[in-house]
């Protein structure tokens, strides 16, 4: 098993592959212009079935449910990198003001 997260993968490594599923010419006609001119692409993760490979090579992987898929190796140990994002001052301050508003209305009731 390869320990490095670089561009080299060994059999059994968890990798992401890429496939062009339909070229622009193969796509249906009734698409918005910005969609019509680009290929329809897909990515999938699985365990490398080839003995070794480099990013960019055509490889075979076994998916999490045991199917075999062929594609171009794009990432070894692919990352999940979506984030919580930056703090939002306007949003936080508006909600804190609302908290103050109900405290005032409660005080008024009493």
């Amino acid at each position, binding site marked *: 098993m390869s320990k490095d997260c670089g561009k080299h993968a060994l059999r059994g490594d968890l990798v992401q592959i890429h496939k062009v599923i339909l070229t622009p010419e193969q796509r249906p006609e009734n698409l918005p212009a*910005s969609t019509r001119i680009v290929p*329809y692409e897909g990515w999938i993760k699985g365990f490398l079935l080839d003995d070794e490979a480099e990013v960019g090579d055509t490889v075979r992987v076994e998916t999490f449910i045991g199917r075999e898929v062929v594609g171009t190796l794009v990432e070894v140990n692919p990352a999940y990198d979506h984030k919580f994002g930056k703090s939002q001052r306007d949003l936080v301050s508006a909600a804190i003001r609302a908290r103050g508003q109900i405290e005032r209305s409660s005080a008024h009731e009493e």
Partner: protein
Amino acid sequence: MKSDNGYHSVMARRNEILERSTGIDYREFEISPLAFDYEGMMNSCGYSLSDIQQIQRETGVGDTPLIELRNVTKLVRSISAPGKGGRIFIKDERANPSGSFKDRRASLSVYHAARLGYEGVVCASSGNYGAAVASQAAKRGLKAIIIQEVYDSRKVGQPEILEKTRTCEAYGAEVWQVTVGPELFYMMLRALEETGFFSASLYIPTSVLGIETLGYDVAQQVMEREGKFPDMVVITHAGGGNVTGTARGLEKAGSGETVVVGASVDLRGLHMASDHDFNRKSFTTGHSGFGIPFLTWPDRTDVPRNAARALRYLDRYVLVTQGEVFYTTELLAKLEGLDRGPAGNTSLTAAISLARELDEEQILVVQETEYTGAGKLPSSQLTFAEENGIEVRQGDPKGNVPGKVIVIPDRAEQVHVEELELSKIRESYVRHAMESTGVSQPAGADVVFLAEDCGSSVEFVREVLNSLNVEKASG
């Protein structure tokens, strides 16, 4: 035998693929090219409400808490006329195994697939439904393939969908991340054909029947606690299943008088299949880009006849803006201690506006929440929006422009629903029904079907049909 996997060849085989993968022969329910036996189709799988409750309990789905939002109600009353400001409750559907009400849909469809002997399930969903199918499949020992529309052509992914990829893979599903386009359906058909798996579409009868327990629970819980049924239930609306299943469940509990309101985020003007527009929206579902077209023509989906037919059940349909939903999400966390994801907060936003119309003793229920986290939070979505050229500012949400400007309200009184006229939507539905089915002279049974299917009357449908003929004659 090697079959041709080109786009048009696969699409031409769609009906046979779907029949094999749903176990449903949709022709059985056809009355005419236009009309079909909706209730017959819904009852054809043979599950009663108590069967469904039993099946859902087996995998830990349902029986979620109903929480009164006392502080949000207080806030609403502080901005309402004297005596106004109904009590707001929320159904904490996040307590389901994969964190949303979608477990109710998936639980019955995955159970059904296992019962029919399928080895696995396929679904095309970039949202909570995919996660629910993956989770239920794990629990029932079935394989799952989830196909998600994730990226634009730059391989930039909506953060909320990237989170759904992560969670589906966490449940052990094979996840296909694809670029923008209606070819999602083609991908699904190919996966179904290659594997012989079950199509756990959102729109097969079991995926809608599974939600009936949600409406039923809401009615029962409010009755047990308050001695009456809810006056209003607000439901986030996209493809129509949530409204359809919840309303049917309310009716089955005897709460048929409850006002059923659908709420969507306003994304009018953005094209859902556009590579350019794809990452200019902060909401991946529960928005008008699905909500309106699925009302005006429900059979635009991945099955011949959609079991989700919201126009039959809606009393009102309202829109809210993205900024208002972010504001409400923040209120729910800071006023009620509930950090929850975007979907249910769309209907909660509408509720803040709608509760102002209600008397203080009236009860309004927001019937879902969902789990939140990286990719799903307002902080995540607003950061992504700014990175994609959207202006984010504070002010009056009337300044909202989908795909260009998100306005965060300063104060709760700025939160206002925009009411869409259901009669206009019903008219549009009748027009679409005629165009899509190619029926030029509808028979009596067709008119009755159209009236039921758009929640209207035979007289209304006849009037619309007449006006269409007039237009044709003069046009």
